[in-house]
């Protein structure tokens, strides 16, 4: 037994010793750990990162770039942040910054941004998401706006494409019923994949509810919020999905088993014709789940009686609380190499090109991204760079891009306790979608009371 213990200890020591050498060498350099480094399954993206790192190392030989792929996940962020093992750069999505700032897991980068003048170049509404008490804690990576992923093949089978092969998609939620019924009759497939398994259900539904004129969490302007889940408009929107399920039977077999990931699969394999999805997830339907590019289209979210909106979210870069000024400065320089910075220059252009090339090699649609930086120069530069990589028929995307460019179409997520609100809404959806005779006003009233209680308990209710 003793021998075995010795053996184990010796093994630990040896493995430790082998790395001492490498660790000692790197001691002098600034360590830049990249949490945004792609996972090992994503070879095309790794190739693009090789280009970024090479360019960056020429410019900043004093920095050692350490790939440290970290997929932002709620169950790991806390332990890692508490233990101080977060990589310098992390990539959370738009709902997270305030929580992370509140918990003290990320650091302010206001001064470093001001030196570069980048603070003025962030889209103001996104800057608000990233700020607290006048300090800025991150920069945007990119934005998305919800639209609908479409399986064009199913539209074609139902005779719903024009002479150019572009689907004659529903412009309003009412039209979705007629178009959807045609598709269902012709193909047997569902018209819409609606989510109701987890909070993503409430998230997608809130976009539908806006179309019916609802505002779900009223911002009182003084840091407090009032629950407004039982407004007549919200009830209309909930009744609409009840009708989709029970009156028209246009949904997939059981929305309660659908989550963000399964939606893409259902569209790709032809079980559903449409699915609320964003422009930053085009690869999900096409590359990951195998829908050919020519059968894929992206359309705007339909309009309702209360208007037409696209939920606008995105991903940001934030910096670990224990990162030094030098590390953050290096990280910001790395943003330029990646083509994610607002300064248009040769290096930025090369970075963007590498990104577009990797997307093309992956077989995903290369269409423009939504920069969250203000400034025409950036957008123009991107348009010029991706042009040679264009691998899709833009007609299948044009209406989406036109619609989200219209003033007033983009709408940020509801504020307050957003995830808790989604959870309450998802519960109502689950009841409505499993019980034909659910009392929707009563359920919405309960959800409203519950959400208000949570707001009050958190000290931000009114």
């Amino acid at each position, binding site marked *: *037994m003793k021998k*075995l*213990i010795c053996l*184990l200890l010796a*093994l*630990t020591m040896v*493995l*430790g*010793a082998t*790395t*001492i050498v490498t*660790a*000692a060498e790197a001691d002098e350099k600034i360590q830049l750990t990249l949490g945004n480094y792609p*996972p*090992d*399954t*994503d070879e095309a993206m790794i190739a693009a990162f090789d280009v970024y790192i090479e360019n960056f190392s020429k410019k900043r030989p004093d920095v050692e770039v350490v790939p*440290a*792929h*970290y*997929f932002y*996940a709620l*169950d*790991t962020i*806390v*332990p*890692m942040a*508490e*233990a101080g*093992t977060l*990589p310098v750069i992390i990539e959370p999505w738009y709902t997270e910054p305030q929580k992370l700032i509140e918990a003290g897991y990320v650091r302010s980068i206001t001064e470093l941004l001001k030196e570069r003048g980048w603070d003025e170049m962030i889209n103001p509404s996104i800057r608000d998401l990233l700020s607290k008490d006048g300090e800025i804690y991150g920069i945007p990576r990119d934005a998305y706006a919800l639209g609908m992923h479409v399986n064009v093949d199913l539209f074609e089978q139902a005779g719903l494409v024009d002479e150019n092969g572009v689907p004659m998609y529903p412009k309003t939620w009412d039209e979705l019923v007629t178009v959807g019924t045609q598709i269902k009759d012709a193909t047997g497939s569902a018209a819409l994949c609606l989510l109701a398994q987890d909070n993503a259900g409430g998230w997608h539904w809130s976009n539908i509810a806006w179309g019916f004129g609802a505002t779900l969490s009223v911002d009182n302007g003084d840091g407090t919020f009032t629950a407004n889940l039982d407004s007549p408009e919200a009830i209309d929107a909930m009744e609409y999905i009840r009708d989709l399920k029970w009156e028209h039977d246009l949904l997939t077999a059981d929305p309660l088993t659908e989550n963000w*990931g*399964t939606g893409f*699969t*259902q569209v*790709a*394999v*032809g*079980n559903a014709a449409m699915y609320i999805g964003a422009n930053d997830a085009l*690869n*999900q339907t096409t*590359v*990951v*789940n*195998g829908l050919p590019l020519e059968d894929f289209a992206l359309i705007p979210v339909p309009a309702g009686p209360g208007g037409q909106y696209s939920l606008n979210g995105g991903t940001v870069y934030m910096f670990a609380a224990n990162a030094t000024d030098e590390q953050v400065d290096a990280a910001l320089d790395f943003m330029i190499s990646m083509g994610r910075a607002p300064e248009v220059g040769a290096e930025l252009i090369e970075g963007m090109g590498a990104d577009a090339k990797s997307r093309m090699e992956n077989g995903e649609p290369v269409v423009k991204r939504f920069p969250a930086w203000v400034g025409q120069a950036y957008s123009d530069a991107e348009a010029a760079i991706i042009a040679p990589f264009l691998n899709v028929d833009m007609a299948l995307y044009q209406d989406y891009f036109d619609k989200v460019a219209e003033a007033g179409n983009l709408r940020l997520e509801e504020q307050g306790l957003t995830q808790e609100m989604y959870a309450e809404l998802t519960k109502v959806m689950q009841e409505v979608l499993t019980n034909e005779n659910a009392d929707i006003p009563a359920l919405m009233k309960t959800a409203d009371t519950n959400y208000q209680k949570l707001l009050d308990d958190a000290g931000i209710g009114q």
Partner: protein
Amino acid sequence: MRKLLARLYGDKSVGSIRAYDAKSPLTQILSVFFVLICALIIVIVLLPVIWVVFAGFKDIRELNRSTSFFPASFDLSSYVKTWGQLHFTEHYINSFIVLIGGVFCAVIFNGLLAYALGILRPPGYKIVFGLVMWTMLIPPTTSVVAQYLNIRSVVETLAGLMNVKSQETLLAVAPLWFIMGANAFWLVLFKQFFEELPKDYIEAATLDGCSDLRVFTHIILPLSKPIMMVVAIFAATAAWSDFLLPHLLLNNSRWSTVMVRLFEFRSAMRVNDTDRLRAVVFSIIPPIIIFSLFQKQITSGIATGGIKG
């Protein structure tokens, strides 16, 4: 029928039915019924496993649209592709590293404490035993973050002393070995077993001047092979299957195990359901192989070890 049954029940001396019951019509009906139920149980047990292996051959469209139990083709290349893409060779090696150290710690540490509690009984042993039993009631997930923070601070201190990066050395894995050494359930299994060992044998050795530790390694352990086997199997299964703490400790390192990988695939961006199912298949192959090799020892060991627990 009667003769066949009489022969089948021949020397049966456990349970209710005996060879002399073979002539009763009730026994005859029941025995046929039993055989049918047994066959059904075997199907129910194996069906999900066979299904998942078949499903791994399907493509994403087939998986979601086809109503056939069998895949359209048995083309192994899909498995090979997923294996390579998801780097399963590394994860297998890592899983085995975690498992071997974990089994070792489970047997040694729990065995040592059980030996002290069951045989040596130093003053105060009852309090210690009470405390240990109490830990059975604590859902492990409740304190996982506190646990993680303890582990990180020790690991980082050691890494600092050794001047290495913890994530690149076995320091990242070692906490998962030692945690296996603090398991109340296995400890009780050991304790119950030790308490039934012949006392005079142990006392004789003590009188011969053997140290307590020597008695443990030279007398107790050799006598305890069956229970060591049981705990080793439990520990191996637990070490192979655990994912939350390993996921917290090993993500971001080169030590990621098979189950950590499978857990991360829930939300992974570039993995679809067919990849997930193939990963499931990879995750169940080693337990199946080990089980096939040791099934006799495992099933009889569980029964004898378990009854005393």
